């Protein structure tokens, strides 16, 4: 392994199934301690298979990986004591209460009786389930189940947390709340988070770095800003009030970049200088007395990155129905500078 200080290190990891293609096809990645790593890809890309291997629940066909400094094949029990995991679908017992889940998990993790009661209370409080603690989980909403799932993964205070599509199917409010909690775990408490998602905005808002996986291979990796910068500059689209003014508008915007004509006189031009050039464009339009119906700045998205790297769009490839793929960002929490 190359980076001994990494929380998660993966080298040429492969998983083949008997009657299928390579679910994971020789991936390499490294996640630093305290980092949120977003593993982005459509359904069937290999995200969950990777998580199952890294959490020791599925042996790899070949390759190597270490989690928390422990080899996932030879030191499985040490890996498991280092990690917490909330796997796809909240795996809960509908007959038990939230508190009973936490106490059972605490017992099996070897936490003493008094301590596990204290931790259960603290975690219930933390995920906002104190009032529902003694209700059976079968009556919980999807968001409550996910929050309990997260609390269960945290019972033994792991250093590394694996979250496999933690917000799939959640309403926007529940999703935002979960994002906030995950960001707090990493940024305030130094927990390393490996998060798989099929939501672009989730990776964009939450992850310090993103790996894009498709057909079992990592096709791009970097910070969201780096990945977007790789595929080009932002563009501005200007639509004149008078559709016949399109020609004049294109001539004017040619001073900023190569203009592209759209319908109804609208013109798009790339802005290498991003927002700084926007003011200049507005001044130029004003000076030329060109009345504008709309002016929109388009930032490249991770979807554009996915499109550039794989030739197709990520959004819309998901098979599962979701309530809203684009909830609000975590409240009052910016991305950590890196």
């Amino acid at each position, binding site marked *: 392994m190359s980076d001994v200080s990494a929380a998660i290190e993966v080298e040429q990891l492969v998983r083949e199934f008997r009657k299928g293609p390579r679910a994971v096809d020789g991936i390499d990645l490294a996640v630093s301690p305290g980092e949120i790593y977003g593993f982005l890809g459509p359904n069937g890309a290999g995200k969950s298979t990777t998580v199952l291997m890294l959490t020791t629940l599925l042996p790899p066909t070949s390759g190597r990986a270490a989690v928390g400094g422990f080899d996932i094949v030879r030191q499985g029990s040490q890996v498991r004591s280092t990690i917490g995991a909330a796997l796809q679908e909240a795996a809960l017992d509908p007959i038990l209460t939230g508190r009973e889940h936490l106490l059972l998990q605490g017992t099996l993790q070897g936490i003493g009786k008094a301590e596990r009661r204290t931790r259960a209370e603290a*975690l219930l409080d933390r995920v906002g389930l104190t009032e529902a603690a003694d209700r*059976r989980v079968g009556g919980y909403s999807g968001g409550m189940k996910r929050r309990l799932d997260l609390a269960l993964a945290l019972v033994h205070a792991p250093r590394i947390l694996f979250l496999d599509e933690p917000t799939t199917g959640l309403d926007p409010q529940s999703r935002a709340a979960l994002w906030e909690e995950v960001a707090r775990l990493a940024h305030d408490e130094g927990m390393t988070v490996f998060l798989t998602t099929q939501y672009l905005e989730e990776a964009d808002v939450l992850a310090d770095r993103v790996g894009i996986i498709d057909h079992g291979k990592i096709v791009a990796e970097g910070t969201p800003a780096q990945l977007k910068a790789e595929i080009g500059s932002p563009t501005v689209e200007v639509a004149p009030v008078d559709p016949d003014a399109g020609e004049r508008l294109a001539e004017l915007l040619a001073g900023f970049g190569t203009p592209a004509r759209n319908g109804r006189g609208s013109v798009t031009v790339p802005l290498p200088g991003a927002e700084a050039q926007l003011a200049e464009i507005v001044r130029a339009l004003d000076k030329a007395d060109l009345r504008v119906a709309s002016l929109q700045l388009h930032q490249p998205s991770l979807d554009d990155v996915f499109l550039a790297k794989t030739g197709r769009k990520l959004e819309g490839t998901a098979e599962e129905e979701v309530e809203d793929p684009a909830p609000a960002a975590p409240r009052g929490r910016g991305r950590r500078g890196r």
Partner: protein
Amino acid sequence: MGAETTRLVVGAETGQAPGLLEQIGAVAHRSITRTLRQRALLVFPLLFPLILFAINGSSLSAATKIPGFPTSSYRAFALALPFIQGALFVAVSTGTDLARDIETGFFNRLALTPLRPTALLVGQLGGSLVLACIQCVVYLLVGLATGVAIVSGVGGAFVLLALAVLIAFAFASLGALMALRFGTGEAVQGIFPLLFVTVFLSSSSLPRNLIKVTWFRDVATYNPVSYLIEGIRSLIIKGWDGQALALGFGFATLFLAITLALAGAAMKTRLVRT
């Protein structure tokens, strides 16, 4: 989410992995809690065998007129059957519960803890044991209430309960084995008709020596279920029959040993961890 002040001590010491008994206790506590909270799990396995007992007890009483029939009360003769039928229900409920854990991913959650496969299997069977105990006591009390006298006395009643619970535990292990082997509730429920036929092809309705159809008598003779039933029945209608009890306890123990060993091996395979 909740309070801002609650902080985890990331990477904190969580203590030693719990001992085997503590692990078994934790899983068993969950299993028993589940069993007691699912009333349908308790009611139907109680009702169905008792309904059959009531029907058989009244409609087949003429069988006692057959020369050589070992008792004058068909109800006393038939009381052994609910214990075996109850054991079949225990097998199905144990297997279905375990299969549900596998299907929902709860099994994976447990696999991520230091839980040992043995603890998971034995603990899981804890709920089945409680269910079996409740069933057996109810069957016995209903039998007594309907006028069945236990010829072996109070001591015999306790031995009867011990044998019946042992049998139910063995069937529960079979249910667990099916769940671990196939991983779906449907597969587990699929064994119920097979088990029911196996019970039917035994000495459940008549003593083996009074079965006139040769092939049926041969099948019943080779069917271990006959000896489980006869072990229980001997305490009710005969008293202390050493041979019947030895065969009953012997087959029950052998059945339990085989199903438990196979279920243990299946658990290790199912609980794949590196």
